[in-house]
């Protein structure tokens, strides 16, 4: 019954202590390691639809982003392969459609310039691209079928989110196929136009181009000349466009003999070479008469003074601490310019805009800890090329070094003196706040100009006895450029009060134990063998009380006559009756316990017990008569019990 009650109470206690917080409207959290895996078909199919949309828009970069995103998505392991195939093929297809659209545009432009041969080349490229796109489409469709099939999306209830997502994907595929059909139709139309041009009566033209000089500085003039002919006859009054790296630069008219001449300043583009071409596009009365033509390209070697920008090694910067940066400009062996325009940006914000010579410097702004972007732009100036440079500048706090001198041991409730020194790469820390914490005790100090500090950690009372404890020291510098520092030292903490109290308690217990043992020894002298137990015999002199040292019997002192007598009688009884006395029994309880064994001698033994109690507890002394009566009782009991048990 008691065990059950104890178990029930312990169970109730465990239930109360182990109960958790009340729930809220939503689960506040869940154990991620045991949370169920749930794959959402709707979102995966919607992402597929989004991919197809970007393929249609020929946005391969967007598809690549979705591909990267999918690597972090929650997709069933069985579908990882097909989803990956879908996305890879999708990106390739988007790129392919982009190229097809570009080639179609180029081919259309060539046709508008009456250049059927160039257009045909592009058209053939388009046809090849469409073939490739069809192959990618097959891969994408297969992969999406596998994905939709894993969730049985096409068999889902009509109107359900899964079915809607699947239908949307199918609709997007239809749009993609229509796009491919449209592109194919466009290409066929272009091919027909090319064939029409080639089969017609349009006359071919040839265009030549020369450039003098073929090497020049930017900004310098270059002369261009050439001839436009058709079947060897020069064509006069035709408009020739000079293209520099594909962009129209200027236009000239041909002379009567078909020749043309022009001059152009080389654009301020600081590249080593430029491609120059001449283009003839039939217009007005020439439409339907001549085909367009483009001259072979002419390479122009471009010269300029290369500007090099050098920045000193900045290293780290520190918040609140001024930092100046120096930069130099170099031009190799070129003549030096009078001045250059320089802009400096810090994290994209203009920091300085200046005119400078060969070198310049500027101050970095006060910035928060972190990585910041420094950018310098040197503007182009005639023959001098522009230059730019950017660097990541780490703004950091200087590492604070904290040295401590601690006593190693703290005696509670006394305190401890702690000395130390704080410094950083900028030197000693002055007026830095030092916080020292040992358990619940805390003290603060300020550092001196040399970075040193002294602190007195006052402790107090605690429940601890002895053991290790962490001494946490934190330094908070006043300067923003110096970082905070923290260190932990292990200290031995000795609680003197508790330790002394414990020792005192132990000493008291030990003293008590020793005294108890001594008293027991007095009551129970060494026990001789039962056969040799002498019967107590009162001694006359003792009965007269004239001596404290005379004995009543062997080993019994006269002052303890009754106690010794009682002990001897008891031992005799125990030896004769083989009775056993339990521990911590009172004298009267012993008498009661032995009564059944003593029979008629129980009464005398009780009388002897009463005499001993009188001796032990009564404030009045035991009389000689009592002692003699006790001796008589002892003799009667021992002889009687001995006879009865022989």
């Amino acid at each position, binding site marked *: 019954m*008691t065990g059950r*009650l*104890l178990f029930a*109470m*312990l169970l109730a*206690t*465990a239930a*109360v*202590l*182990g*109960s*958790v*917080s*009340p729930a*809220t409207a*939503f*689960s*506040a*959290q*869940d*154990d*991620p*390691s045991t*949370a169920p895996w*749930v794959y*959402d078909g709707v*979102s*995966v199919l919607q*992402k597929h639809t989004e991919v197809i949309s970007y393929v249609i828009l020929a946005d391969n970069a967007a598809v690549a982003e979705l591909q990267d*995103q999918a690597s972090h*998505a*929650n997709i069933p392991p069985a579908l990882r392969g097909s989803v990956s195939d879908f996305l890879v093929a999708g990106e390739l297809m988007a790129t392919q459609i982009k190229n097809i659209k570009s080639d179609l545009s180029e081919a259309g432009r060539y046709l508008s310039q009456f250049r059927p041969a160039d257009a045909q080349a592009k058209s053939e490229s388009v046809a090849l691209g469409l073939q490739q796109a069809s192959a990618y489409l097959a891969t994408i469709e297969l992969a999406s079928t596998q994905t939709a099939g894993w969730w049985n999306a096409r068999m889902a209830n009509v109107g359900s989110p899964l079915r809607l997502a699947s239908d949307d994907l199918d609709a997007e595929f239809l749009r993609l196929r229509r796009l491919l059909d449209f592109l194919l139709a466009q290409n066929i139309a272009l091919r027909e136009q090319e064939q029409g041009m080639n089969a017609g009566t349009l006359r071919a033209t040839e265009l030549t181009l020369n450039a003098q000089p073929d090497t020049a500085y930017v900004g310098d003039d270059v002369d261009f000349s050439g001839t436009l002919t058709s079947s060897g006859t020069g064509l006069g009054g035709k408009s020739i466009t000079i293209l520099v790296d594909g962009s129209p630069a200027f236009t000239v008219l041909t002379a009567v003999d078909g020749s043309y001449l022009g001059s152009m300043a080389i654009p301020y583009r600081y590249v080593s070479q430029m491609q120059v071409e001449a283009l003839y596009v039939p217009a007005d009365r020439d439409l339907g008469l001549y085909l367009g033509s483009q001259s072979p390209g002419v390479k122009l070697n471009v010269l300029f003074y290369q500007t090099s920008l050098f920045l000193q090694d900045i290293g780290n910067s520190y918040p609140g601490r001024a930092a100046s940066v120096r930069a130099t400009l170099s031009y190799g062996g070129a003549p030096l310019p009078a001045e250059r325009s320089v802009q400096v940006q810090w994290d994209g914000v203009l920091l300085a805009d200046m005119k400078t010579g060969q070198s310049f410097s500027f101050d970095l702004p006060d910035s928060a800890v*972190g*990585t910041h972007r420094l950018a310098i732009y040197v503007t182009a100036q005639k023959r001098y090329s522009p230059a730019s440079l950017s660097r990541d500048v780490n703004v*950091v706090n200087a590492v604070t070094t904290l040295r401590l001198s601690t006593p190693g041991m703290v005696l509670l409730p006394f305190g401890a003196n702690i000395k130390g020194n704080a410094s950083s790469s900028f030197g000693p820390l002055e007026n830095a706040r030092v916080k020292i914490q040992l358990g*619940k005790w805390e003290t603060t100090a300020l550092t001196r100009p040399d970075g040193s500090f002294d602190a007195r950690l006052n402790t*107090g009372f605690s*429940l601890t006895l002895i053991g290790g404890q962490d001494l946490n020291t*934190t330094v*908070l510098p006043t300067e923003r450029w110096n*970082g*905070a*520092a923290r260190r932990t030292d292990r200290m031995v903490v000795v609680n003197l009060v*508790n330790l002394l109290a414990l020792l*005192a*308690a132990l000493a*008291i*217990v030990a*003293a*008590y134990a020793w*005294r*108890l043992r001594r*008293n027991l020894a007095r009551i129970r002298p060494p026990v001789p063998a039962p056969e040799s137990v002498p019967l107590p015999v009162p001694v006359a002199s003792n009965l007269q009380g004239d001596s404290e040292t005379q004995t009543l019997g062997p080993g019994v002192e006269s002052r303890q006559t009754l106690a010794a007598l009682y002990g001897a009688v008891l031992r005799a009884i125990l030896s004769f009756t083989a009775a056993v006395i339990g521990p*911590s*029994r*009172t*004298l009267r309880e*012993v008498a009661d316990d032995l009564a059944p064994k003593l029979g008629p001698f129980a009464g005398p033994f009780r009388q002897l017990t009463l005499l001993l109690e009188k001796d*032990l*507890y009564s404030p009045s002394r035991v009389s000689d008569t009592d002692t003699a009566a006790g001796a008589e009782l002892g003799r009667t009991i021992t002889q009687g019990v001995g006879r009865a048990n022989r």
Partner: protein
Amino acid sequence: MPLILGIVLFVSWLSIAFYPSKGDYMATNTGWNGLRGLAQSVGPRVVDSIDAAGQDEKGKVLISIPGQPFTQQESDLIGAFLRNGGTLLLADDFGYGNQILEALDVQIKFTTDALVDPYLNYRNQWFPRIMDIAPDMQAAGVRSIILNHASALEVTGPYEILASSSDTSYLVADEAATEGLKGPFPVAARATLGRGTVIVVSDASLLVNSSMSLDDNLAFVKALVSFAGENPEVIIDGSHLSKTPLDLARNFWDKAKGLMAAPYIQVLLVGAILALTSIPVWRKGRSNGRL
């Protein structure tokens, strides 16, 4: 009966003193929902009350997981803490975070709806994977983080968005809902208040032990804490955590220990122990009458 009561009390005391807490967000809880991992990584100390703000709180981060409402006095003290340069990291989902944000006049609100992401997640939609991370955080090595039954933020002030959910995420009004307002939504933002900084994160579970090993959650938490500077002093506000009876009992025991460590009480205790141990000596006379 007294013996049974004694055993029950002793077992209860053993449990209170030594049995690790199972409560959410408890610093001593080594289970999945505790903050033991955070304690080991950023070394915070837990305070049981917000009762004072110092003159210079620079370099201090107070992490608050508001599972309990704030009093006006506590709001005022947090305001003073921020004005004096402290950093408050308020991590909440459906608790009392809005109360303190309103009191501080920060134009950010926690949504009352839950954020789910059925596509970008860990295991299921209740663990949204956040991949839109601010450059500052990316520089600290954070590429993605995992939330756990999170809410989202409504940021209407000119504050820095530190992380946002994806366009496949949405808010749901209850756990059975399958659609809601479409994302992306901010999930972490930083506001400057005078000399102080308030960092708001729409999920307190980001800090628990089981979250630390997911994606870059640990780096994210460290980066948030480092907004207060290098080696910041991190303090966890333990007074607003929802506590289990065991945690409440442990708090009570801690307070009792603190009380017992007071000088006068300790002197009395030592005296009482000495007196108790001496009782048998005083009763010597009576003991002598026993065998």
